[in-house]
């Protein structure tokens, strides 16, 4: 019987493969279609969207939703704010993450204590109100820094970086030390050049996290011109009125609420969606290295 089965398997070896390919493809469509639907909603006029609930292609193009959101002054401010916190946030986060990971990747005495001190904060935190009061005392309310400073070290990223550093042979550092190189020099001249793919990965993670910033913006930013992009998208989703109030009466008939909402969503999604496929191979490697700890 087993011989028979082997033969049968050989003969139609590709049928199960095709079924699996189809199943994976369907799941990919389930993930992809909501984005595609949102994109189409943002680029068609109202009457098309109403008549074609399940669109596969746009029968008629209309970019006025994008025109409206970009004519809303806060949108430009929001983009500016977000770009600022991404650039500064990545530099700040990379500096703290890399220095911490480098030190903890060595056999320095006390590393277990420091590790416990750090990991404890993953298990227990002060909570919403105590954090809020601290931020107020630090004068971070309504400051851009409230969306940067609290995100210095992401422990997961630090651990991935640390595992990567510990794969680098300590002998390089030893011989540099004998030659009289300082620790920062060793980090900069030996460790960083040897870990560029990993640095790119961690930089991407931090950058995406900062791009997606909204929560601290919601809690601490009181000035509507300082709100980050994602928070504005959230505001638009709960009510498009903040955008449509600005639109001159003559243009009002072209207003289409779902279109405006999805245009805002697309502005927040597209930069990430365009950048990350190129970095895929790096972060797959990175997470595999960081292993189960994710």
């Amino acid at each position, binding site marked *: 019987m087993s011989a028979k*089965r082997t033969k049968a398997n050989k003969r139609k070896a590709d049928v199960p493969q095709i079924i699996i390919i189809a199943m994976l493809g369907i799941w990919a469509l389930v993930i992809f279609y909501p984005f595609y*639907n949102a994109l189409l909603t943002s680029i068609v006029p109202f009457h098309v969207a109403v008549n074609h609930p399940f669109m596969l292609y746009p029968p008629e193009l209309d970019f006025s939703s994008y025109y409206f959101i970009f004519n809303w002054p806060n949108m430009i401010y929001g983009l500016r704010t977000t770009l600022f916190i991404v650039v500064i946030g990545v530099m700040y986060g990379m500096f703290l993450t890399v220095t911490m990971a480098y*030190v903890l990747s060595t056999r320095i005495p006390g590393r277990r204590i420091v590790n416990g001190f750090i990991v404890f904060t993953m298990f227990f935190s002060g909570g919403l109100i105590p954090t809020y009061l601290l931020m107020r005392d630090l004068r971070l309310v309504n400051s851009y820094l409230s969306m940067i400073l609290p995100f210095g070290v992401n422990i997961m990223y630090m651990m991935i970086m640390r595992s990567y550093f510990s794969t680098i042979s300590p002998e390089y550092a030893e011989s540099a030390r004998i030659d009289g190189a300082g620790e920062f020099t060793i980090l900069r001249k030996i460790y960083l050049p040897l870990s560029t793919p990993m640095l790119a990965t961690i930089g991407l993670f931090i950058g995406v996290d900062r791009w997606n910033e909204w929560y601290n913006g919601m809690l601490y930013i009181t000035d509507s011109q300082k709100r980050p992009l994602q928070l504005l998208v*959230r505001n638009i989703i709960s009510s498009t009125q903040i955008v449509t109030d600005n639109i001159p009466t003559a243009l009002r008939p072209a207003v289409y609420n779902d279109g405006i909402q999805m245009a805002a969503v697309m502005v927040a999604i597209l930069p990430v969606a365009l950048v990350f496929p190129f970095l895929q191979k790096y972060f797959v490697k990175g997470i595999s290295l960081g292993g189960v700890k994710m």
Partner: protein
Amino acid sequence: MVDSVFVRGKPSKEEKALMKQFKRKKLIKEIRRYRSLYPIMIFGVVFFIIFAYMPMYGIQLAFKDYTFGRGVSGSPWAGLAHFQRLFARQEFWSAFLNTFIISMIKLLGFPAPIILAILLNEITSRRYTKSMQVIYTLPHFLSWITIGGIMKRLLSSSGTINSLLASLGNSPVAFLSNGDIFRFLLLFTDMWKESGWSCIIYMAAIAGIDPTLYESATLDGANRLQRAWNITIPSIRTTISVLFILAIGGIMGGNFDQIFNLYNPTVYSKADIIPTYIYRITFEQAPNYGFSTAVGLFQGVINAAMLFGANFIVGKMDSDAKMI
């Protein structure tokens, strides 16, 4: 010969002292060796002290009547009054129960990334696997704000899915306003967003399996399903159990971002979890900081206990995966 000098059994006092001295000398030598590294660590340590440990000072508010003018340390003590009020509140218990139930429902999605990884591993075309992975991992990198916006547009009473159902002559489904359906929507959107990401870890574990196992199984006539069941899953069972225990440990955490960006008042009774409850009583009503802190502390302690427990069990199974 040597044995006669170092007698087996307990080391004598002198030996102990000698060993201690030796250890201390070694430690000093090690510290001196690494001394220039300590200043580099300061940046990160200071960061954790300020943004992770200093807020813990404010936890005392859970036992105080906070008044704005007097600050954290100056406000009068209130004993356990906040906790007594808390336990008498039906809203709190409902949020507590919801946090638990929703996490349990989400555990149903736990096998999804494993199945995805096994299926992806069966594909011989590397290019197809890679491009599928790009699509599967994309949602992980997007905020719950944007995902929430897209999902609400798809699933609202006048959204894409319901319009489609209506055009096919079906009655609409209240995805966003029926609490029971909404809970499963939380499961689905969670799987939709994160399973591709978790899948990467399982794929890495599968990549470490000895390929000759599969070859000999194939020679013995095992089909795909038998190979997956008898080789793949047993080989990655440590990864599976570690992630499962960590998932159980996180049960009282709750995903604020997801629920906050998907829910609405009609489903509060079924979907309000403790983090969203704390947010609402603090920022959408007249705030009582002491009370809000008490709710947070209650959840935080249970959550930490569960995470420590999970971490302990994980450490027993695989010491590499232990966090502390």
